C-alpha cells in the first residue's frame, strides 16, 4: 500500500449537469475502453449506457422525475462512477489485495494481481465494479491514475463543459461544496444536499455529490454499509447451527444406544 501523498477526489454538482455525456466519452477515449455493442437502446430516457460495468466506468444517469398527478416534471442527471470510498467494500473483501489505495488516496485495481473471483462485485454497495470482458479482471474508474501521476486531472473532469465535475484535493472540494450547498439553499433549492462529503457515508467518499433530491431518487443508497455488516450475524448463526447439529446428533446417537440396550436386555431376560 502506498503512502498517501494527497487526497484527490471529485465534487459532482448535479445541479450543473445537463446530460451531455462528454464525461462518458472522455473516459472511454482516455482509458481505451471498448465501445458498447450497437445498437444498445435501453428504452430508458436518453440513457443508453444503462449502468456502470467493466466497459463503462462512467455513466450519466437520466432521471425523468414526474409528479404523481403528472402536472410537473423535471430531469435529473447524475454523472456516476466509482466513489473511491474511504471504507471501500470492494477492497475489504478482495482475497488477493488486488484492490489497493494509491498515493492519491484513491481506490485502484491492480490487474496483475486480480484473479477475477468476482467477490468484489458483491462487496460494492453502489454496484460499480464488474469484470471486464477483455481483461477478465475487475474493472472500474481509476480516477485516471495515470493522469494523476503526471499532474493532470481526470479526463472526465477536463471534458466537462459545465464544471459539474470539479477535481482537486478533497478538503478543498468539501469546502467548495459546502459553500455551494449554502448558496443553493439560500436561493430556494431547499432539497439540495451533499452526499458523501462527510464521514457518515462509508467514512467519506472521495467522489461526492450535490444532489437536488433525496439519494434514493438517484438510485443511491441512503445509508450504505460495508458487506461485513452481515458477517458477524452469519458467524453467530453458525455457532447456533453447530450447537444444534451437535446436540441433535448426540441425542440421536444416545437414543439408538438406549434402544439397543433395551432390546439386548429383553433378549437376555427371555433367554
Amino acid at each position: 500500500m502506498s503512502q498517501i501523498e494527497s487526497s484527490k477526489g471529485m465534487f459532482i454538482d448535479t445541479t450543473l449537469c445537463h446530460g451531455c455525456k462528454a464525461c462518458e466519452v472522455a473516459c472511454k477515449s482516455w482509458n481505451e475502453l471498448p465501445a458498447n455493442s450497437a445498437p444498445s437502446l435501453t428504452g430508458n430516457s436518453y440513457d443508453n449506457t444503462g449502468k456502470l460495468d467493466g466497459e463503462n466506468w462512467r455513466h450519466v444517469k437520466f432521471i425523468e422525475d414526474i409528479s404523481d398527478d403528472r402536472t410537473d416534471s423535471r430531469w435529473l442527471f447524475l454523472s456516476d462512477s466509482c466513489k473511491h470510498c474511504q471504507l471501500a467494500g470492494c477492497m475489504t473483501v478482495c482475497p488477493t489485495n488486488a484492490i489497493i489505495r494509491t498515493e492519491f488516496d484513491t481506490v485502484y485495481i491492480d490487474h496483475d494481481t486480480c484473479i477475477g473471483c468476482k467477490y468484489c462485485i458483491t462487496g460494492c454497495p453502489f454496484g460499480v465494479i464488474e469484470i471486464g470482458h477483455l481483461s477478465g479482471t475487475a474493472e472500474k474508474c481509476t480516477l485516471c491514475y495515470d493522469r494523476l501521476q503526471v499532474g493532470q486531472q481526470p479526463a472526465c473532469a477536463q471534458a466537462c463543459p459545465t464544471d459539474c465535475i470539479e477535481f482537486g484535493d478533497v478538503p478543498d472540494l468539501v469546502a467548495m461544496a459546502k459553500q455551494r450547498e449554502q448558496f443553493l439553499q439560500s436561493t430556494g433549492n431547499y432539497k439540495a444536499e451533499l452526499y458523501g462529503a462527510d464521514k457518515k457515508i462509508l467514512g467519506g467518499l472521495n467522489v461526492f455529490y450535490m444532489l437536488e433530491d433525496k439519494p434514493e431518487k438517484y438510485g443511491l443508497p441512503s445509508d450504505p454499509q460495508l458487506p461485513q455488516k452481515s458477517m458477524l450475524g452469519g458467524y453467530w448463526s453458525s455457532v447456533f447451527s453447530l450447537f444444534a447439529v451437535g446436540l441433535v446428533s448426540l441425542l440421536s446417537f444416545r437414543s439408538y444406544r438406549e434402544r439397543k440396550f433395551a432390546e439386548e436386555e429383553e433378549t437376555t431376560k427371555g433367554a
Partner: protein
Amino acid sequence: MYNYELTQLKSPDFPFIIIFDLFIGGIAAGAFLVTVLLLAFGGKINKAGLHRAYYITMALLPVYGLLLILKLEHKERFINVLWQIRDGTIMLNLQSPMSLGAWVMNVFGVFALVGFLYALKKDNLLQFSWAQKLYHLATWLHEGPIAKVFLSIGAFFSAWFGVYLGILVTTSHLPAWNATPFIPTLWMISAVITGVSVVILLLIFTNRSSQLNESIQRLDNIVKSVIVLNIAMIIVFVFALGQWSETVTRGMFGVLLWGGVVGIGLLVPLLLKLKPNLLGLKNSLIFSSVLVLVGGFILRYVVMMGPMSYW
C-alpha cells in the same frame, strides 16, 4: 425506476460450477465433522468402519479446490489467494471470508490428510514402508493420549470450513444473501446430512458380513433427526428473507425448493427411513441417502441461483 436494490446492485453471476463446489465442500466438511466428533466423544460403542469417512473427505477436498480454481477468470493466478506476489508476503485478509476461507481449507486439508493416513492404516491399505512413521503418527494422533484434543481441533476446522461456505455468501450486498444470517446455518445442517449420507453409502457398499450394520444404523439415526432440523431451518430461512423470499420461492425456484429440496430431498427420505419396509432395509437406506444428496444439491442451486437470477 431507480430503485436502489433493483437497479444499482449487481449480481456477481457466479458460474454454475459454484453449486458443485459448495455441494462437494459441504459433503467433505459434514462427513469429517461427524466422524471426528463420534470418534472423539462417541464413547465405547461400536464405531466399526467410521474411519472410512476420511476417504470421502480426502477424495472430495482436492476436487473442491479444483472447482474453486476453475470458477476464476484467471485460473493460473489462483496462488495469489495464498501468496501476495506484488509484495512477496503471505496473503491473508482477515476481513475477507474468501481469503480466510482459503487458509481454513488448507488447515482442514492437513487434518483430512492425517485422517486419510489413519484410515489406510486401519484398513491395511497402501502401506508403503517409507511412510510407516507417518501412519504411526496418524494412528497416535487418533488413538493416543491427545486424541480428543487433536480430533476436537479437527472438528473445529472442518466446522469452520463448512460455515465459511455460507459466510462467503452472506458477506455481500446482494439483498437476498444478506437479508438473513441463516445461510451458513442452512449450509452446515445440509452439510451434515449430505456428508453422513455419503458415509452411509460407502459403508453399505463396503460392508462385509454385516459387521458395519450397527455403525450404519447409528449414522442413519443422525440423518433422521437432522432432516427434521433441516426442514425447520428452511422454513425459518424463507421467512427471514422477508421481502426477498420470492427470489427463492418464485416460479421454478419455488418448485425446486418445496418440491425438490423439502419434498424429494427431505420428506421422502425421512419416510423411507421411518418405514424401511417400504423398499426393504438396504434399499431404503440407499435410496433415501441418494435422495438426500439430490436435495442438498438442489438447495444450493436455489439459494445461489435464485437471488443471482433476480438481477
